[in-house]
């Protein structure tokens, strides 16, 4: 670009053009921000209105950080729905000791850098606690920040690494891959009586947790997997590794990956002629998995989860009905565990008058809570639930075993 030699009128045009470009880019950026930055409800506007309403006591600020854009947006929305339902019910019943809960929603876009940035922001905005993230990798990145700030965090992540950070402020709202995979490995080895097992997992925080936990259980039983393949979390074409796995002719294929990737693995495995039964933890039971893989491919897959069905008992039925009414969609595991997790924190808030981090985590640990997923009792590292159940996919639905 050599502007110096251009005639003046052309320079003018050039500047106009620059302005136009700048304006165009600004608009594009604003649109992108408006859509991606704070997805959904006008989160940032909420606190100012609350502050002006003087006679009622200040609301309790709770911040939810989740993925509302990107490949794992399903997880973020399920988590949000569960938490929102618990908060709305508590507010409708008079709030926490007369104070309403003010739930703020931030979109981490599935990016650790954005998640940590939002965590800093939430803390500076005097949040009492943080719900999220729904991804283990992001939750892990947030732990040092919340620990230093002494703000409790409850995550929908399930990686064992989350509980190995030596922080009393982190809690997980279901259970870890260790518990999931103990249950799963026992079922495959003892009930299905199969020990020709191949493994495929991704090397993200969740996938690695699944891989290590399942492999540990196999090793304990003296079983060596026919193949043990690790892939990157964002890969979508698995022809090469699945070809190797097919060569080992396994009867069971263990998948340790998030919903969409698990679905793609299953779909491509079948199209390459792998006839093994797919087994895995909670992702295998989700509608996203079934939709991505296809109902035929998913048929007969074995999964494990603490929440198999909305029809388990009166409590889950009531939850599913309320969920359906509020969001016009069917309740599932991720929404249920978020509902449980938030309900436990609300109960803890009611129990302690002091909502500072150290007091709040003490209150959470003192509670025994009978939830949708089972009985919660949080231990020192932040694990509250200690069992899962086995389900099999039949015509796209989970059937309890």
């Amino acid at each position, binding site marked *: *670009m050599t502007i110096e030699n251009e005639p003046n009128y*052309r320079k003018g*045009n*050039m500047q106009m*053009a*620059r302005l*136009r*470009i700048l304006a*165009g*880019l600004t*608009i*594009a*950026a604003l*649109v*992108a921000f*408006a*859509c*991606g930055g704070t*997805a959904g409800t006008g989160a940032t506007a909420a606190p100012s209105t609350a502050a002006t309403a003087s006679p009622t006591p200040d609301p309790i600020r709770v911040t939810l950080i989740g993925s*509302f*854009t*990107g*490949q794992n*947006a*399903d997880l973020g929305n399920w988590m949000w729905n569960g938490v929102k339902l618990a908060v709305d019910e508590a507010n409708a019943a008079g709030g926490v000791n007369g104070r309403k809960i003010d739930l703020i929603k931030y979109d981490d876009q599935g990016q650790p850098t954005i998640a940590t940035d939002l965590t800093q922001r939430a803390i500076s905005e005097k949040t009492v606690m943080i719900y999220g993230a729904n991804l283990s990798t992001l939750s892990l990145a947030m732990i040092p920040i919340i620990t230093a700030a002494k703000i409790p965090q409850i995550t929908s992540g399930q990686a064992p690494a989350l509980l190995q950070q030596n922080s009393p402020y982190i809690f997980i709202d279901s259970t870890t891959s260790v518990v999931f995979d103990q249950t799963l490995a026992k079922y495959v080895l003892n009930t299905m009586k199969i020990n020709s097992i191949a493994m495929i997992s*991704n*090397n993200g925080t969740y996938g690695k947790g699944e891989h290590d936990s399942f492999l540990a259980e196999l090793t304990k039983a003296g079983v060596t997997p026919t193949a043990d*393949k*690790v*892939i*990157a979390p*964002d*890969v*979508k*074409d*698995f*022809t*090469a*590794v699945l*070809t*190797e796995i*097919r*060569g080992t002719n396994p009867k069971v294929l263990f998948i340790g990956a998030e919903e*969409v990737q698990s*679905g*793609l693995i299953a779909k491509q495995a*079948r*199209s*390459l*002629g792998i006839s093994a039964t797919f087994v895995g933890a909670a992702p295998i039971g989700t509608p*996203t998995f079934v*939709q*991505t893989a*296809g109902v035929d491919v998913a048929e007969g897959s074995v999964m494990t989860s603490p929440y198999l069905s909305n029809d388990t008992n009166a409590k889950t039925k009531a939850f599913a009905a309320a969920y359906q009414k509020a969001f016009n969609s069917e309740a599932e595991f991720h929404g249920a565990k978020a509902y449980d997790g938030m309900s436990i924190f609300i109960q803890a808030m009611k129990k302690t008058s002091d909502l500072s981090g150290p007091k709040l985590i003490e209150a959470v640990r003192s509670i025994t809570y009978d939830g949708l997923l089972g009985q919660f009792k949080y231990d020192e590292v932040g694990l509250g639930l200690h069992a899962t159940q086995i389900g099999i996919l039949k015509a796209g639905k989970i059937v309890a075993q």
Partner: protein
Amino acid sequence: MTYVLQTLVGGLGMGAVYALVAMGFSIVYRTMGLVNFAHADVVMIGAFLAATLFVTMHLPFAVAITLAVLLTAVIGLGMERILRPLESKDLNLMLIGTIGFGIMLQSVAIVVWGSFGIAVPTPIPNVPIDVGGIIVTTYQLFVLAVSGIVMLLLYLFLDRTKLGTAMQSAAMDRSAATAMGVNVATSNAIAFAIGSAIAAVAGALVGPLLYVNPTLGVYVGIKGFAAAILGGFGSIPGAIVGGLIFGLIEAFASGPLSAYSELLTFVVFALAMMVRQTGIFGERTVDRA
């Protein structure tokens, strides 16, 4: 041996898709010397349109892909028209304009389709065919066939029609072509329309292989762009060869070091570019900037 052949087959399927994306980059570049950074997102829009028409509206796949191609071509025309005032001033400005347009397309996709994405079933029964131990699926053959037809059509258009030749002359020397009666603006508009139409074909084909969501363009686009460079940016045969080779590099890289396949793919790409900076068919690229 079975492993090598099987990986080869898998790599060619994705390679054909990368080749289509690379062709879209190249047709615009060779016509007007512009790198269209919105191209990756045009692929994504094409994929969404095809997926919506096929999955949500239950149209036959042939109809869905045709409509998606036409609609996406119109988007390409619109993009060229919006950015045209910049073309005669400074191509760098237009380049930045395409980046902005790409961001806008992603945002529009999130507004229209949401952030969830659509899982697309294969349009034809995806039967695994066993050829001496190597599994070829019917859908892979379908992807290769459709890509081949599109490549042939584009080649015939550029080399055998008057309009195609006129577009090439506009690329070589803008003012001389204008003096010869070639309408450069029309030529550019057609390049954008064709590039976008091919992007829609790539998007429609890749949907059932992967998963259609607003970030699909990032996944396929970067590799298509790299494939175009590998083949020699601006060269149509280069785009095809570059795409297929890139697909193969990726397939073979994901075997031994599957956890780092992306890294390995781009390391091999970087090494290849160090050996031959201009790409495989590099000598034929247009340099107008």
